[in-house]
């Protein structure tokens, strides 16, 4: 069956609401407007206001209310329109959702799922284009999911709702329109392991979310020149599947990390550090990173394109660490 990523997320929400009476969706404009990315279009009509709840512009308030509802036995899916606005709810996410279980010595877990759109590429400028999912991955107590495929968009939500702890799901804005095949019976997927999306021998390209598709395209291009790139989709940024990362690097001995976030302090740094710690003696070249430029995202297309990792950048980064090139080692 052909579907869009948007429809896959919508189906996942529908199914959850039908299957578990404790589940409800809450957020700005999820109801009457149909969701700012049209994800929840039609759901208010189908399920009514108790299950599809429009909220005022109060990010801290309704995310906190979601935490409270989770403590009270519900299974809320809270939508924050975009990761940029989640900064207004950070106190609730970090000081409460991520911390209550520990602070209460295990007395209270917080089974909330928070979904948000992330990423750039739509010319909506500095305050609307951030990629902060890797930044969130710094916080113990949270799980961070980044579905990059239709299957994961469809399946991760259910798994997240079954998790006893807070799970944040980041949907890259450029994926909503992506079309593809989705099995009729597509359902829950595991969220513990990274996935190799393309096998290869010469270099490991490690990425997630919106950048996965750029990495795959780069791998195609490299294949034309006889370079065989393995593409690892992390899927979950916290906890990171370190084993999968080290295994692919142990096989290819070279790694390029692709991440749309600003380079300094991005998840790419953590991955690089873990490779150094766990596969240092396997490395034939320094780990390379292809990241977002360290600049608030500019509006004009040519500058935005330059600010974000592109297929060319990935190809070039891979080339720069292949044998025989300057950085490529011996």
């Amino acid at each position: 069956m052909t579907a869009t990523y948007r429809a896959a997320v919508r189906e996942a929400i529908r199914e959850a609401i039908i299957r578990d009476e404790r589940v409800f969706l809450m957020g700005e404009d999820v109801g009457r407007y149909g969701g700012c990315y049209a994800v929840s279009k039609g759901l208010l009509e189908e399920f009514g206001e108790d299950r599809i709840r429009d909220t005022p512009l109060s990010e801290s308030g309704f995310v906190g209310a979601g935490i409270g509802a989770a403590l009270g036995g519900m299974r809320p899916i809270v939508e924050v329109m975009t990761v940029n606005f989640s900064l207004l709810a950070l106190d609730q996410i970090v000081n409460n959702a991520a911390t209550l279980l520990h602070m209460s010595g295990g007395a209270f877990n917080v089974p909330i799922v928070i979904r948000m759109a992330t990423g750039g590429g739509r010319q909506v400028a500095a305050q609307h284009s951030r990629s902060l999912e890797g930044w969130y991955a710094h916080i113990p107590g949270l799980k961070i999911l980044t579905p990059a495929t239709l299957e994961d968009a469809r399946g991760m939500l259910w798994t997240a709702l079954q998790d006893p702890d807070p799970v944040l799901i980041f949907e890259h804005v450029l994926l909503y329109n992506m079309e593809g095949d989705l099995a009729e019976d597509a359902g829950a997927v595991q969220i513990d392991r990274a996935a190799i999306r393309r096998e290869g021998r010469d270099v490991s390209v490690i990425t997630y979310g919106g950048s996965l598709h750029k990495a795959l395209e780069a791998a195609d291009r490299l294949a034309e020149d006889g370079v065989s790139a393995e593409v690892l989709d992390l899927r979950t940024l916290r906890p990171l599947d370190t084993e999968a990362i080290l295994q692919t690097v142990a096989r290819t001995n070279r790694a390029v990390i692709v991440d749309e976030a600003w380079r300094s302090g991005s998840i790419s740094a953590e991955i690089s550090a873990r490779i150094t710690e766990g596969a240092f003696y396997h490395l034939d070249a320094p780990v390379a990173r292809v990241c977002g430029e360290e600049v608030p995202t500019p509006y004009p297309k040519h500058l935005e394109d330059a600010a974000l990792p592109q297929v060319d950048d990935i190809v070039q980064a891979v080339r720069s660490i292949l044998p025989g090139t300057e950085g490529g080692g011996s």
Partner: protein
Amino acid sequence: MTHPYPPSPPLPDEEHARTLLRHMLLIRRFEEKCAELYTQEKIRGFLHLYIGEEAVAAGSIPLLGPDDSVVATYREHGQALVRGVPATNVMAEMYGKIEGCARGRGGSMHIFDAETRFFGGNAIVGGGIPIAVGLALAARRERSLGDSPDELRVTACFFGDGAMAEGEFHESMNLAALWHLPVLFCCENNLYAMGTPLDVAHSETELALRAASYGMPSWTVDGMDVLAVEDATRRAIEAIRGGGGPHFLEFRTYRFRAHSMFDPELYRAKEEVEKWKERDPISLLASRMREADMLDDAGMEELEAEVEAEVEEAVRFSEEGSWEPVEELTRFVYSESDVDGGQSP
């Protein structure tokens, strides 16, 4: 603006009056012990005492049923004790022992107890308020799911005057009123946020007025008079249970001690504190009981003895408690079972 409070309600029967007095005395003696233990370095970190404000917790919380919920702040020993969290476990928490109600992970500011639906112990000012809104949302939904009591569960949410300046307060008040949720907002107006007096923090110092602007019933209550607290709380809870939506109570009270153990109290005059001590909530109730022949010296001594025994037992229990093994440091970051456990509704 001074408050011409309505006349204090009549004394209840002797047994009930004695319970109120006992609760307040328990908080008082328990916390005096905490202060002592702090000096002995048995308790560490931040310690915020409730001494002077006992009437608020003692007058309000016992009116909640077992299915109701409480959300409190870092100044929450009193709330926890009258809610029925055992003094032993509260004290052990402050010792940092495994027998503490949060296994010692939280300390004084983070009392949690699933049994009594005591949801913290939140040390971010205002941070608990949205959570109370969410608990109330769950309570309303539960009822519509049909597997819960006929009457709405109430969530009582405590916070200070200072908290009302936070954005989270505003967002929560609007959500609760908009969605007509069963929450009781209990503002403990002790006139200071740390060292900042009310009128240095709020353009509108009539806090009940501020709350009323969201369109919810809001009353100002003499927070030193446990009977007034009880009366107002009873009326509010009845209204909420019957579907009357959120209510706001401003309890005018005062803390007799410093904000925390680090506070040199540069910001207020000793005379002001002494003046307020004339309305000590424990003495106020005790005098009325004496006047009504419900209490005499012997009765008071008996009460004191009971309470002291409870506090001593809490200390003994905590002293004998055990430390969590260091190997368990990273437990409770994630739940230990993968299954969708969680709180049952």
